[in-house]
């Protein structure tokens, strides 16, 4: 097995035992990137020279008997809406094409502080607005399982980079499902932490009452370890919570017998039959584990899409007001200040971002604010209360992570409402401030190709430990099938590239 094929846990074990160096890990990682990135387009920027300096520093510390941290030598990719000092931070937008971040986001300093090596910035839907990476100004990312399909979004570059074996861990952001949906489409794990658990300082704001940052990796354990490094209070994020002494890895292997798990019926509406088949197989597995399953009703889930597509664009229209050509980013030449604002924004933002800003502007305008925005905020309270009632009966909830497997490039981009409705299963978790894990639960056969489909495990606020524990128990039962198919897909990608080079 090559190093790039290993999970984060396997790599860290090898580095800590000094069987391989951090530099050898990085060599393998960049070898894999050069092999498959031309097909995938997962990265907007690669940071090889800086990464090599970091790997050399980790090796030197290990040589001197010092401890570089519990992520020593682990290559990590970063979604390009998270600031890494000295690197471009485009947010997938032309308006920030040449902007270099002057500081590290808190999540970056925490990962690097534990010895992680940042290898590059990954592609995303522009300003994280989209579910496919098709709205990126830097081209679409391809799904490694089928290059004619999207990897999901908006953290599609991070998901594809992990799935294709380019990095063991990547960071994503999740405002309405942007970690969980691409994780599901690419057969990896992604954790959306509870709102407030992980600092957003240095992360470009989209919808501030919904935005979260989380890890994406091949396994549940890998995500738990990355969360151990990322979580914790940060006074630089006004929504940050104090959580001391919590480890997400420890206790992850405790048995799940006796846990009560609910299935919200409304989250099964419109899910394709083959995804339902895989979901039912997981439910049977959990029953075998001694988990108590019960069906639930969360009636206000029927309003979730409407609530989200008022609140998120409203907050985005306010957050993105800062991109005006004055202090940073693209500036269009104009005679007057007002013309400069309008022209810089009109030419710098892409169509989907403009669409959402206009939705938000309309929903917040005089005469509409009470009718739409305040009403959506009240309905959000109703949804939160409904979830509280549901969690009064169960410890966790589960559902498919997406209603279907990855769709084709170009299939939905001209029909925004259909794209929005596809996020129905993930959006409520953000609206209610909960945590949720997306993890592979099997495969769906689409046009003769095996495409992964994901399970969503939803937890109460700050109950990531129980979410990860259930996910880990499922993973141990089905990982042989997942890893075998993942290995086959990854080898196929490498071979396809070799054939292309020979031609």
């Amino acid at each position: 097995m090559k190093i790039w094929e290993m999970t984060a846990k396997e790599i860290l074990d090898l580095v800590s035992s000094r069987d391989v160096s951090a530099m050898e890990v990085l060599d393998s990682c960049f070898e894999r990137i050069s092999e498959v990135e031309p097909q995938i387009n997962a990265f907007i920027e690669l940071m090889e020279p800086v990464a090599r300096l970091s790997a050399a520093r980790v090796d030197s510390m290990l040589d001197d008997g010092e401890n570089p941290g519990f992520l020593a030598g682990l290559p990590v990719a970063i979604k390009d809406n998270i600031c890494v000092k000295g690197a471009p931070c485009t947010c997938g937008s032309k308006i920030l094409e040449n902007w270099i971040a002057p500081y590290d986001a808190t999540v970056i300093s925490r990962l690097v502080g534990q010895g992680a090596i940042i290898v590059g910035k990954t592609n995303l839907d522009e300003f994280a607005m989209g579910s496919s990476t098709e709205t990126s100004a830097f081209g679409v990312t391809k799904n490694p399982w089928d290059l004619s399909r999207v990897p999901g979004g908006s953290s599609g570059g991070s998901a594809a980079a992990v799935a294709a074996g380019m990095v063991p861990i990547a960071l994503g952001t999740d405002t309405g499902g942007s970690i969980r949906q691409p994780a599901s489409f690419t057969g990896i794990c992604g954790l959306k932490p509870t709102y407030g658990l992980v600092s957003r300082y240095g992360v470009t704001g989209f919808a501030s009452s919904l935005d979260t940052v989380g890890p994406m990796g091949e396994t549940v354990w890998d995500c738990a370890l990355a969360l151990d490094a990322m979580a914790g209070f940060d006074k630089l994020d006004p929504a940050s919570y104090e959580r001391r002494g919590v480890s997400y890895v420890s206790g992850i292997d405790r048995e799940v017998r006796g846990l009560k798990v609910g299935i919200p019926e409304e989250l099964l509406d419109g899910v394709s039959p083959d995804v339902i088949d895989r979901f039912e197989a997981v439910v049977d597995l959990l029953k075998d584990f001694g988990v108590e399953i019960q069906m639930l009703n969360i009636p206000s889930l029927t309003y979730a899409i409407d609530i989200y597509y008022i609140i998120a664009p409203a907050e985005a229209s306010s957050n993105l007001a800062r991109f005006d050509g004055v202090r940073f980013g693209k500036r269009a030449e104009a005679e007057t200040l007002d013309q400069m604002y309008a022209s810089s924004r009109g030419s710098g933002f892409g169509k989907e971002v403009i669409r959402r800003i206009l939705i938000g502007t309309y929903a917040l305008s005089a005469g509409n604010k009470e009718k739409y925005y305040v009403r959506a905020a009240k309905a959000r309270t109703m949804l939160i209360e409904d979830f509280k009632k549901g969690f009064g009966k169960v410890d966790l909830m589960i559902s498919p992570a997406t209603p279907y497997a990855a769709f084709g490039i170009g299939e939905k981009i001209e029909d925004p409402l259909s794209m929005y409705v596809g996020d129905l299963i993930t959006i409520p978790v953000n609206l209610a401030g909960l945590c949720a894990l997306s993890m592979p639960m099997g495969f769906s056969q689409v046009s003769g190709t095996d495409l992964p489909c994901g399970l969503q495990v939803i937890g109460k606020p700050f109950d990531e430990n129980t979410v990860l524990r259930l996910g880990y128990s499922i993973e141990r039962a089905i990982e042989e099938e997942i890893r075998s198919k993942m290995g086959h897909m990854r080898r196929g990608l490498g071979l396809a590239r070799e054939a292309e080079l020979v031609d």
Partner: protein
Amino acid sequence: MDFDIKKIARDASIELPEEYEEDIKEDLIELFDHMKHLLEADLEGFLPTFSMVEAKSLELFEDIVDASLSPEVFLESAPSIYERYFVVPRGSQEP
């Protein structure tokens, strides 16, 4: 339902590319039509949720000087500066 899409764009300080106008207008009609369901919901007794947290960082901190980046670092990213100021075109209301 109809939308004055040019007015909304003006409110948002966006010069709307002509080729987007019709598409975005139709999308707004479709999306806000979908909202009818929400407009009919019985929300009596629910207060609005605008924020998810009563966060610790909103509490008062000790009043001490903390390290921060120098203004020069941010001026470096600006499209146009004069000494330590951002330079912009004249305001539209000027004579």
